[in-house]
Protein backbone atom coordinates (compact mmCIF):
# COMPACT_ATOMS: atom_id res chain seq x y z
CA UNK A 1 0.00 0.00 0.00
CA UNK A 2 1.27 3.44 -0.95
CA UNK A 3 2.90 5.77 -0.29
CA UNK A 4 6.07 3.70 -0.51
CA UNK A 5 9.11 5.86 0.07
CA UNK A 6 8.36 6.67 3.71
CA UNK A 7 7.29 3.13 4.66
CA UNK A 8 9.84 1.14 2.70
CA UNK A 9 12.82 3.24 3.76
CA UNK A 10 14.23 3.57 0.25
CA UNK A 11 17.94 4.37 -0.02
CA UNK A 12 18.64 8.05 -0.68
CA UNK A 13 19.82 7.54 -4.28
CA UNK A 14 16.58 5.74 -5.18
CA UNK A 15 14.50 8.46 -3.52
CA UNK A 16 16.32 11.13 -5.55
CA UNK A 17 16.04 9.09 -8.76
CA UNK A 18 12.26 8.89 -8.26
CA UNK A 19 12.23 12.68 -7.75
CA UNK A 20 14.06 13.21 -11.05
CA UNK A 21 11.63 10.93 -12.92
CA UNK A 22 8.60 12.69 -11.39
CA UNK A 23 10.24 16.04 -12.22
CA UNK A 24 10.71 14.97 -15.85
CA UNK A 25 7.01 14.09 -16.05
CA UNK A 26 6.16 17.42 -14.41
CA UNK A 27 8.30 19.47 -16.83
CA UNK A 28 7.10 17.47 -19.84
CA UNK A 29 3.42 18.02 -19.00
CA UNK A 30 3.91 21.73 -18.29
CA UNK A 31 5.69 22.23 -21.61
CA UNK A 32 3.14 20.16 -23.55
CA UNK A 33 0.38 22.28 -21.98
CA UNK A 34 2.01 25.31 -23.59
CA UNK A 35 3.15 26.75 -20.25
CA UNK A 36 6.58 27.62 -21.60
CA UNK A 37 4.94 30.71 -23.12
CA UNK A 38 4.44 33.72 -20.84
CA UNK A 39 1.95 35.36 -23.17
CA UNK A 40 -0.15 32.20 -23.11
CA UNK A 41 -0.04 32.12 -19.30
CA UNK A 42 -0.85 35.83 -19.04
CA UNK A 43 -3.79 35.31 -21.41
CA UNK A 44 -5.65 33.82 -18.44
CA UNK A 45 -5.92 37.30 -16.93
CA UNK A 46 -7.08 39.07 -20.10
CA UNK A 47 -9.37 36.27 -21.33
CA UNK A 48 -7.71 35.60 -24.70
CA UNK A 49 -6.26 32.25 -23.58
CA UNK A 50 -7.64 30.23 -20.66
CA UNK A 51 -5.34 27.21 -20.90
CA UNK A 52 -4.11 27.86 -17.33
CA UNK A 53 -7.59 27.31 -15.87
CA UNK A 54 -8.25 24.20 -17.98
CA UNK A 55 -4.94 22.49 -17.24
CA UNK A 56 -4.86 23.48 -13.58
CA UNK A 57 -8.35 22.27 -12.67
CA UNK A 58 -8.15 19.15 -14.84
CA UNK A 59 -4.88 18.18 -13.13
CA UNK A 60 -6.20 18.87 -9.61
CA UNK A 61 -9.36 16.83 -10.26
CA UNK A 62 -7.49 13.89 -11.82
CA UNK A 63 -5.16 13.69 -8.81
CA UNK A 64 -8.01 14.24 -6.33
CA UNK A 65 -10.33 11.61 -7.84
CA UNK A 66 -7.43 9.21 -8.49
CA UNK A 67 -6.13 9.39 -4.92
CA UNK A 68 -9.60 8.84 -3.49
CA UNK A 69 -10.11 5.77 -5.68
CA UNK A 70 -6.68 4.40 -4.70
CA UNK A 71 -7.60 4.96 -1.06
CA UNK A 72 -11.03 3.35 -1.52
CA UNK A 73 -9.48 0.22 -3.01
CA UNK A 74 -6.95 0.05 -0.16
CA UNK A 75 -3.96 0.90 -2.35
CA UNK A 76 -3.06 4.27 -0.81
CA UNK A 77 -3.09 5.40 2.80
CA UNK A 78 -4.17 9.03 2.48
CA UNK A 79 -3.26 9.67 6.13
CA UNK A 80 0.40 9.36 5.10
CA UNK A 81 0.09 11.84 2.21
CA UNK A 82 1.30 15.32 3.12
CA UNK A 83 -1.46 17.89 3.69
CA UNK A 84 -0.34 21.52 3.56
CA UNK A 85 -0.53 23.30 6.90
CA UNK A 86 -2.73 26.34 7.06
CA UNK A 87 -1.24 29.60 8.32
CA UNK A 88 -4.11 31.99 7.52
CA UNK A 89 -2.17 35.25 7.22
CA UNK A 90 0.78 33.98 5.23
CA UNK A 91 -1.41 31.88 2.89
CA UNK A 92 -3.38 34.99 1.92
CA UNK A 93 -0.57 37.58 1.90
CA UNK A 94 1.85 35.16 0.22
CA UNK A 95 -0.81 34.39 -2.40
CA UNK A 96 -1.41 38.08 -3.12
CA UNK A 97 2.34 38.69 -3.56
CA UNK A 98 2.50 35.66 -5.87
CA UNK A 99 -0.39 36.98 -7.97
CA UNK A 100 1.45 40.27 -8.44
CA UNK A 101 4.61 38.37 -9.37
CA UNK A 102 2.60 36.26 -11.82
CA UNK A 103 1.19 39.21 -13.78
CA UNK A 104 4.52 41.07 -13.76
CA UNK A 105 6.75 38.12 -14.64
CA UNK A 106 4.34 36.01 -16.70
CA UNK A 107 5.39 32.75 -15.07
CA UNK A 108 5.10 30.85 -11.83
CA UNK A 109 8.27 29.13 -10.58
CA UNK A 110 7.52 25.74 -12.19
CA UNK A 111 6.57 27.18 -15.57
CA UNK A 112 9.54 29.59 -15.39
CA UNK A 113 12.00 26.72 -15.03
CA UNK A 114 10.17 24.82 -17.79
CA UNK A 115 10.30 27.81 -20.19
CA UNK A 116 13.98 28.35 -19.39
CA UNK A 117 14.66 24.76 -20.48
CA UNK A 118 13.50 25.47 -24.05
CA UNK A 119 15.54 28.67 -24.35
CA UNK A 120 13.24 31.51 -23.22
CA UNK A 121 15.58 34.27 -22.08
CA UNK A 122 12.83 36.09 -20.18
CA UNK A 123 12.30 32.87 -18.21
CA UNK A 124 16.01 32.77 -17.35
CA UNK A 125 15.67 36.26 -15.85
CA UNK A 126 12.50 35.15 -14.08
CA UNK A 127 14.34 32.22 -12.46
CA UNK A 128 17.29 34.45 -11.49
CA UNK A 129 14.74 36.80 -9.89
CA UNK A 130 13.22 33.78 -8.16
CA UNK A 131 16.58 32.77 -6.68
CA UNK A 132 17.00 36.37 -5.49
CA UNK A 133 13.52 36.24 -3.95
CA UNK A 134 14.39 33.06 -2.03
CA UNK A 135 17.61 34.71 -0.84
CA UNK A 136 15.74 37.84 0.31
CA UNK A 137 13.20 35.67 2.13
CA UNK A 138 15.95 33.81 3.98
CA UNK A 139 17.71 37.03 4.96
CA UNK A 140 14.50 38.78 6.10
CA UNK A 141 13.10 35.67 7.82
CA UNK A 142 14.04 36.73 11.38
CA UNK A 143 12.09 39.98 10.83
CA UNK A 144 8.95 38.46 9.34
CA UNK A 145 8.91 35.23 11.35
CA UNK A 146 6.12 36.33 13.76
CA UNK A 147 4.04 37.34 10.74
CA UNK A 148 4.82 34.12 8.83
CA UNK A 149 3.77 31.97 11.79
CA UNK A 150 0.64 33.98 12.61
CA UNK A 151 -2.81 32.34 12.81
CA UNK A 152 -1.72 28.70 12.56
CA UNK A 153 -4.60 26.29 12.02
CA UNK A 154 -2.81 23.00 11.24
CA UNK A 155 -3.36 20.72 8.22
CA UNK A 156 -7.06 21.62 7.87
CA UNK A 157 -9.10 20.02 5.07
CA UNK A 158 -11.53 22.16 3.13
CA UNK A 159 -14.33 19.56 3.12
CA UNK A 160 -14.16 19.24 6.92
CA UNK A 161 -14.55 23.00 7.34
CA UNK A 162 -17.64 22.84 5.11
CA UNK A 163 -18.95 19.72 6.87
CA UNK A 164 -18.88 17.60 3.70
CA UNK A 165 -17.42 14.17 2.94
CA UNK A 166 -14.39 14.14 0.59
CA UNK A 167 -16.50 12.50 -2.12
CA UNK A 168 -19.30 15.07 -2.03
CA UNK A 169 -16.84 17.96 -2.01
CA UNK A 170 -14.99 16.44 -4.99
CA UNK A 171 -18.26 16.10 -6.90
CA UNK A 172 -19.09 19.77 -6.23
CA UNK A 173 -15.58 20.77 -7.33
CA UNK A 174 -16.03 18.85 -10.60
CA UNK A 175 -19.37 20.60 -11.24
CA UNK A 176 -17.75 23.98 -10.50
CA UNK A 177 -14.81 23.16 -12.80
CA UNK A 178 -17.10 22.18 -15.69
CA UNK A 179 -19.01 25.47 -15.23
CA UNK A 180 -15.70 27.38 -15.29
CA UNK A 181 -14.54 25.51 -18.43
CA UNK A 182 -17.78 26.53 -20.12
CA UNK A 183 -17.30 30.20 -19.15
CA UNK A 184 -13.64 29.97 -20.24
CA UNK A 185 -14.59 28.75 -23.73
CA UNK A 186 -17.00 31.70 -24.08
CA UNK A 187 -14.35 34.14 -22.79
CA UNK A 188 -11.78 32.91 -25.32
CA UNK A 189 -14.19 33.78 -28.14
CA UNK A 190 -15.22 37.12 -26.65
CA UNK A 191 -11.70 38.34 -25.81
CA UNK A 192 -9.98 36.63 -28.75
CA UNK A 193 -6.63 38.15 -29.74
CA UNK A 194 -5.67 36.22 -32.86
CA UNK A 195 -2.59 38.41 -33.37
CA UNK A 196 -1.24 37.07 -30.04
CA UNK A 197 -2.57 33.50 -30.02
CA UNK A 198 -1.36 32.82 -33.57
CA UNK A 199 2.19 33.50 -32.44
CA UNK A 200 2.25 31.49 -29.20
Amino acid at each position, binding site marked *: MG*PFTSAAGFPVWLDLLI*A*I*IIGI*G*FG*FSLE*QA*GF*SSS*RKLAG*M*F*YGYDTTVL*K*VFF*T*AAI*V*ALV*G*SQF*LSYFGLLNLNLVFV*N*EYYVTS*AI*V*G*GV*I*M*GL*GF*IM*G*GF*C*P*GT*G*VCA*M*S*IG*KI*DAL*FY*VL*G*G*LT*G*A*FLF*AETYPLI*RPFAEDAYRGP*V*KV*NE*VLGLSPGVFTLLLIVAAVAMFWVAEIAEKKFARPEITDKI
Partner: protein
Amino acid sequence: MNPYLAGTLLGLVLLSSMYIAGRGLGASGGLKYCVVSIVGAVSKPHAEKSEYYSKYFEDEQKPLFNWLTMIIFGVLTGGFISGAVSGRLKFKIEKSPNISNVRRLIFAFAGGMLFVYGGQLARGCTSGAALSGMAVLSLAGFVTMMAIFGSAYFFAWFFRKNWI
Protein backbone atom coordinates in the same frame (compact mmCIF):
# COMPACT_ATOMS: atom_id res chain seq x y z
CA MET B 1 -1.35 19.45 -26.79
CA ASN B 2 -5.04 19.81 -26.00
CA PRO B 3 -5.23 21.54 -22.57
CA TYR B 4 -7.56 18.96 -21.04
CA LEU B 5 -5.24 16.17 -22.18
CA ALA B 6 -2.16 18.00 -20.86
CA GLY B 7 -4.03 18.61 -17.59
CA THR B 8 -4.82 14.89 -17.32
CA LEU B 9 -1.14 14.08 -17.89
CA LEU B 10 -0.10 16.60 -15.22
CA GLY B 11 -2.73 15.17 -12.86
CA LEU B 12 -1.36 11.65 -13.37
CA VAL B 13 2.18 12.87 -12.62
CA LEU B 14 0.89 14.50 -9.42
CA LEU B 15 -1.04 11.34 -8.52
CA SER B 16 2.11 9.23 -9.04
CA SER B 17 4.04 11.52 -6.72
CA MET B 18 1.33 11.22 -4.05
CA TYR B 19 1.13 7.42 -4.49
CA ILE B 20 4.86 6.71 -4.55
CA ALA B 21 6.26 9.40 -2.29
CA GLY B 22 3.27 10.66 -0.28
CA ARG B 23 3.88 14.23 -1.39
CA GLY B 24 2.80 16.58 -4.15
CA LEU B 25 4.77 18.51 -6.75
CA GLY B 26 6.76 21.65 -5.94
CA ALA B 27 8.94 24.16 -7.73
CA SER B 28 9.74 27.11 -5.47
CA GLY B 29 11.13 24.82 -2.75
CA GLY B 30 13.81 23.58 -5.15
CA LEU B 31 14.88 27.16 -5.88
CA LYS B 32 15.15 27.74 -2.13
CA TYR B 33 17.45 24.71 -1.74
CA CYS B 34 19.63 26.03 -4.59
CA VAL B 35 19.99 29.33 -2.73
CA VAL B 36 20.69 27.54 0.56
CA SER B 37 23.47 25.55 -1.16
CA ILE B 38 24.99 28.67 -2.72
CA VAL B 39 24.95 30.53 0.60
CA GLY B 40 26.47 27.49 2.32
CA ALA B 41 29.24 27.33 -0.29
CA VAL B 42 29.99 31.08 -0.18
CA SER B 43 29.86 31.54 3.57
CA LYS B 44 29.41 28.48 5.78
CA PRO B 45 29.70 30.51 9.03
CA HIS B 46 26.87 32.82 7.90
CA ALA B 47 24.69 29.81 7.05
CA GLU B 48 25.37 28.05 10.35
CA LYS B 49 24.72 31.20 12.37
CA SER B 50 21.43 32.08 10.65
CA GLU B 51 18.19 30.81 12.20
CA TYR B 52 16.88 30.24 8.68
CA TYR B 53 19.77 28.47 6.95
CA SER B 54 21.19 26.53 9.89
CA LYS B 55 18.41 23.90 9.89
CA TYR B 56 19.42 22.86 6.37
CA PHE B 57 22.99 22.10 7.41
CA GLU B 58 22.26 19.98 10.49
CA ASP B 59 23.45 16.35 10.47
CA GLU B 60 25.78 16.87 7.49
CA GLN B 61 22.84 17.42 5.12
CA LYS B 62 23.60 18.33 1.52
CA PRO B 63 20.88 20.79 0.46
CA LEU B 64 21.70 20.35 -3.22
CA PHE B 65 20.94 16.61 -3.12
CA ASN B 66 17.39 16.88 -2.02
CA TRP B 67 13.97 15.78 -3.31
CA LEU B 68 12.95 19.32 -4.32
CA THR B 69 16.16 20.22 -6.19
CA MET B 70 15.91 16.92 -8.08
CA ILE B 71 12.38 17.93 -9.12
CA ILE B 72 13.82 21.16 -10.60
CA PHE B 73 16.50 19.18 -12.42
CA GLY B 74 13.76 16.89 -13.74
CA VAL B 75 11.56 19.82 -14.87
CA LEU B 76 14.51 21.22 -16.85
CA THR B 77 15.05 17.83 -18.47
CA GLY B 78 11.35 17.10 -19.10
CA GLY B 79 10.68 20.58 -20.46
CA PHE B 80 13.66 20.25 -22.79
CA ILE B 81 12.52 16.82 -24.05
CA SER B 82 9.01 18.16 -24.69
CA GLY B 83 10.38 21.25 -26.46
CA ALA B 84 12.60 19.03 -28.63
CA VAL B 85 9.74 16.67 -29.49
CA SER B 86 7.44 19.56 -30.41
CA GLY B 87 10.11 21.64 -32.19
CA ARG B 88 10.01 24.57 -29.76
CA LEU B 89 13.68 24.80 -28.77
CA LYS B 90 14.72 28.36 -29.52
CA PHE B 91 16.48 31.26 -27.78
CA LYS B 92 13.85 33.96 -27.56
CA ILE B 93 12.53 36.83 -25.46
CA GLU B 94 8.76 36.54 -25.51
CA LYS B 95 6.88 39.82 -25.03
CA SER B 96 4.28 42.16 -26.38
CA PRO B 97 5.54 44.19 -29.37
CA ASN B 98 4.60 47.34 -27.41
CA ILE B 99 7.44 46.98 -24.90
CA SER B 100 11.22 46.78 -25.16
CA ASN B 101 13.33 43.70 -24.44
CA VAL B 102 14.91 45.45 -21.45
CA ARG B 103 11.51 46.24 -19.93
CA ARG B 104 10.42 42.61 -20.40
CA LEU B 105 13.55 41.27 -18.72
CA ILE B 106 13.29 43.70 -15.79
CA PHE B 107 9.65 42.76 -15.23
CA ALA B 108 10.49 39.06 -15.54
CA PHE B 109 13.22 39.39 -12.89
CA ALA B 110 10.98 41.42 -10.54
CA GLY B 111 8.07 39.02 -11.06
CA GLY B 112 10.23 36.00 -10.24
CA MET B 113 11.57 37.70 -7.15
CA LEU B 114 8.10 38.55 -5.85
CA PHE B 115 6.63 35.17 -6.75
CA VAL B 116 9.25 33.14 -4.92
CA TYR B 117 9.25 35.50 -1.93
CA GLY B 118 5.45 35.12 -1.67
CA GLY B 119 5.79 31.38 -2.25
CA GLN B 120 8.21 31.05 0.65
CA LEU B 121 5.83 33.00 2.87
CA ALA B 122 2.84 30.86 1.84
CA ARG B 123 4.94 27.65 2.13
CA GLY B 124 4.39 26.75 -1.51
CA CYS B 125 3.73 28.27 -4.93
CA THR B 126 1.22 27.41 -7.65
CA SER B 127 2.41 23.80 -7.75
CA GLY B 128 3.33 23.10 -4.11
CA ALA B 129 0.53 25.00 -2.39
CA ALA B 130 -2.26 25.57 -4.91
CA LEU B 131 -2.23 22.48 -7.17
CA SER B 132 -0.87 19.86 -4.77
CA GLY B 133 -2.82 21.41 -1.89
CA MET B 134 -6.10 21.18 -3.78
CA ALA B 135 -5.40 17.53 -4.68
CA VAL B 136 -5.26 16.64 -0.96
CA LEU B 137 -8.24 18.91 -0.11
CA SER B 138 -6.02 21.20 1.96
CA LEU B 139 -7.80 24.42 2.92
CA ALA B 140 -4.46 26.23 2.68
CA GLY B 141 -4.23 25.07 -0.97
CA PHE B 142 -7.65 26.45 -1.87
CA VAL B 143 -7.06 29.76 -0.05
CA THR B 144 -3.62 30.23 -1.66
CA MET B 145 -5.02 29.38 -5.10
CA MET B 146 -7.79 31.96 -4.76
CA ALA B 147 -5.35 34.58 -3.42
CA ILE B 148 -2.93 34.04 -6.36
CA PHE B 149 -5.58 34.19 -9.09
CA GLY B 150 -7.62 36.95 -7.39
CA SER B 151 -4.53 39.11 -6.99
CA ALA B 152 -3.34 38.50 -10.56
CA TYR B 153 -6.78 39.52 -11.90
CA PHE B 154 -6.74 42.60 -9.67
CA PHE B 155 -3.29 43.72 -10.84
CA ALA B 156 -3.79 42.66 -14.50
CA TRP B 157 -5.16 46.05 -15.53
CA PHE B 158 -2.00 47.86 -14.37
CA PHE B 159 0.32 45.63 -16.40
CA ARG B 160 -1.83 45.15 -19.51
CA LYS B 161 0.67 46.95 -21.74
CA ASN B 162 3.22 44.21 -21.04
CA TRP B 163 1.00 41.55 -22.55
CA ILE B 164 -1.69 42.84 -24.91
